[in-house]
């Protein structure tokens, strides 16, 4: 716990990426495998399910500190971070724990889940008394699960890759899928032999940045493979060892929900991984995405719904071919292999390439997007590899308005009139330096069923109240659409949007997948130029 608390402090102390990577590498190099496994689990945001209610935790910390409720409130107001407030308030530390991180987690933290409140309180107080202040802070962060120190998954991947001498692409890949933190997992993670890998494991998705400024800056359109930007569920279809796996971008295994794709997998050669978009599709064209919502939540898919809303995989790219990782091959090579393998008349539809001699010609074509139920264009540079995560340069999304941003629900309050009994007014946050900052409010766009579902979520997951406003656990992701975006000094985020509305509920995404303020600032830059 000493080393881990020191790592937390080191990561927190610097804003410089290189210094963060360096601190991580030093920690990982010295840590026991089981400690390293737990450390990265928390750092990439895969914490165990919520253990304790914050209210109770606060109550016990107050009792231990001898501080009344109102004074805790004053302190929290000054600090703005729950775990930190508790760490600063607890009586001066007299000890420092030499127990390693995995012991703290496996023997002290996880068992709290089964314990009754009295035992939990006793165990926690005991734990605080064994720790020094930086340890208490890191421990409180583990307990509350707000474990963010401005460290992105990419950065953690980079640190493990550099520490182990394994390529970052391979490392990112190994961190995907299902795993549990253990010494064994860590050894496999940093092992140079990769053949024992989990056969269901997907590759990290390559993500696109929105075009900033004028698209002309990207050069000749002939250098770009241009596709429609489909509006479905981004996913990977994996065929290995005669089994099929369908993963969402949110790293959820969805094979059961798409029997069409399970069947498609059986038609594909052994050792194939396709990146694509799952779309409701009929008679050679997509259905509106709302149709997909009808089947996505269902446990049992009857013949009726399967007949009404069949899906296809619109294939974008080929990542594994004959069991070989082909992500480093040029885009056109991968595309050619993908086209060759598509079984005729199957649920695999290759995403068509759009051609235009000039950007103006393409601009005109892009105007058809709405009619085609797409969101604009994807621009992929010929010759480029399939990259890990969001990297600038090779993949761009050139979307039509409205702009869309994936945000996390952070506050909710009841509506007016007819909707006064339901939480219908929402505030959404986006990431900034590891924290969610309020970005926009929206009231409309959800169906009545969805509103009821969000309402139930708010009631179950309120972490704090200020009058009618409930702060909720940041978990639900929504795609907000809006008409215009501009800089604003009156908004906490520095950005104001016009007519925000909820375009859809991204049940396929986790809070971590929401957009960041930086990405949104990029939209402002692009927008300002468009309007000049």
């Amino acid at each position, binding site marked *: 716990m000493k080393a881990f608390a020191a790592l937390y402090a080191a990561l*927190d*102390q*610097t*804003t*410089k990426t290189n210094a963060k990577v360096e601190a991580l590498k030093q920690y990982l190099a010295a840590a026991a495998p089981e400690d390293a496994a737990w450390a990265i689990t928390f750092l990439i945001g895969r914490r165990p399910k919520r253990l304790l209610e914050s209210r109770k935790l606060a109550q016990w910390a107050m009792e231990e*500190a001898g*501080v*009344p409720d*109102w*004074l805790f409130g*004053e*302190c929290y107001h*000054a*600090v*703005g*971070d729950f775990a*930190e*407030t508790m760490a*600063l*308030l607890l009586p*001066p530390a007299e000890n420092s724990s030499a127990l390693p991180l995995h012991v703290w987690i496996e023997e002290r933290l996880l068992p709290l889940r089964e314990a009754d409140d009295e035992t939990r309180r006793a165990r926690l107080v005991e734990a605080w008394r064994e720790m020094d202040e930086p340890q208490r802070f890191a421990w409180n962060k583990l307990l509350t699960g707000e474990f963010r120190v401005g460290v992105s998954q990419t950065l953690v991947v980079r640190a493990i890759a550099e520490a182990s001498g394994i390529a970052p692409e391979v490392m990112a890949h190994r961190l995907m899928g299902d795993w549990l933190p253990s010494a064994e997992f860590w050894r496999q993670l940093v092992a140079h032999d990769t053949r024992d890998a989990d056969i269901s494991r997907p590759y990290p998705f390559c993500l696109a940045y929105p075009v900033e400024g004028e698209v002309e800056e990207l050069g000749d359109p002939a250098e770009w493979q241009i596709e429609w930007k489909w509006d479905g569920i981004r996913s990977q279809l994996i065929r290995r060892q005669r089994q099929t796996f369908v993963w969402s971008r949110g790293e959820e295994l969805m094979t059961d929900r798409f029997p069409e794709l399970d069947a498609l997998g059986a038609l594909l050669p052994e050792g194939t991984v396709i990146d694509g978009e799952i779309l409701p599709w009929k008679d050679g064209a997509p259905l509106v995405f709302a149709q997909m919502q009808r089947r996505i939540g269902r446990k049992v898919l009857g013949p009726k719904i399967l007949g009404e809303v069949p899906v296809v995989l619109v294939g974008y790219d080929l990542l594994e071919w004959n069991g070989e990782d082909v992500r480093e091959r040029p885009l056109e090579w991968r595309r050619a292999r993908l086209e060759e393998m598509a079984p005729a008349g199957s649920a695999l539809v290759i995403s068509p390439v759009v051609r235009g001699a000039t950007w103006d010609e393409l601009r005109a074509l892009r105007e058809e997007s709405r009619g085609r139920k797409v969101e604009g264009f994807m621009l992929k540079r010929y010759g480029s590899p399939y990259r890990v995560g969001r990297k600038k340069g090779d993949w761009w999304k050139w979307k039509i308005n409205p702009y869309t941003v994936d945000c996390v629900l952070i506050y909710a309050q009841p509506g007016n009139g007819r909707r006064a009994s339901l939480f219908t007014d929402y505030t959404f946050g986006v990431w900034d*330096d590891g924290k969610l900052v309020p970005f926009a409010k929206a009231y409309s766009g959800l169906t009545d069923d969805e509103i009821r579902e969000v309402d139930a979520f708010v009631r179950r997951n309120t972490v704090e109240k200020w009058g009618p406003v409930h702060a909720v656990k940041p978990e639900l992701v929504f795609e907000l659409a809006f008409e215009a975006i501009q800089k604003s000094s009156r908004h906490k985020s520095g950005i104001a949007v016009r007519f925000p509305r909820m375009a859809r509920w991204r049940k396929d995404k986790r809070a971590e997948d929401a957009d960041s303020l930086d990405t949104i600032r990029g939209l402002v830059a692009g927008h300002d130029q468009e309007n000049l």
Partner: protein
Amino acid sequence: MLEVREAGLYCPQGDFYIDPALPVARALITHAHGDHARAGSQAYLTTRTGEALVRARVGDEAAIESLPYGATRRVGEVDVAFHPAGHILGSAQIRLEHAGEVWVVSGDYKLSPDPTCMPFEPIRCHTFVTESTFALPIFRWGDAAGVVREIEEWWRGNREAGRASVLFAYPVGKAQRILSQLDASGGPLIYQEAVERVNAIYRGQGIALPHATEGGDLSQALVIASPQMQGSAWLRRFGKASMAFASGWMRIRGTRRRRSLDRGFVISDHADWPGLLQAIGESGAENVWVTHGYVGALVRWLEENGKRAVAVELKLPAEEAAE
């Protein structure tokens, strides 16, 4: 014995103000920070050790009289004496006695040791006027000498990485408190002008402070500058420096992060929460006037713990010079 007027705390029996915010006929000054000593009054009374610092603040032409610590002077019908507050060089609590009643106006104070000033002296009184800059239980200071070791360690790390170390510290008091305990042998030492001006006054009072170095490799340097210099053109000459701030506010991560600092060193010239409660307790006062900071929190705490406490709203300029 005191009342709150527009210019600040006024004593009718002595016809003087303490640390007035506006020009007055007679001002008693607890210490030389900008929120306590202001130019324009006709006559000033402060401590002998603090006189030079106060003069630097209120101007060369000002009429300033001074008293040694502990000496009594009758002003109007009031016996006035200055006692060490342990805050900065020459800082004082002002003891007022009239017709057997004793009041103490503590100004800013701290209980922890500081080689650049006399330690805080507890004085029994009926009414104690206290500051509350850090009056929340989250504010608890560690050993200041240990913090100076952390600063040296940070400087050493930066030298090894080949980057300059810029330490922001309030130029009156905080900078000198750190410098007086600093092992400056590691590399070039550079003072921003505002800091060096005050250093000279401290040296004039017999406090040994390391001297700035001529020339040298800037990437190895420790630069001591006023926090107001953050983001200034003057700092550009030090290249990709590591930036740190020495202040009690650095106890909260958020304040450090909002200022985009690489490091925060928790060291304050104000009393922390236990220090405030200790000073108030040792004064033996039944009445406590609370100014200057987390007034509401301290008043409520004192009331819940059997004291009579009053929130005193004084007109203060926006800049809080002391921290």
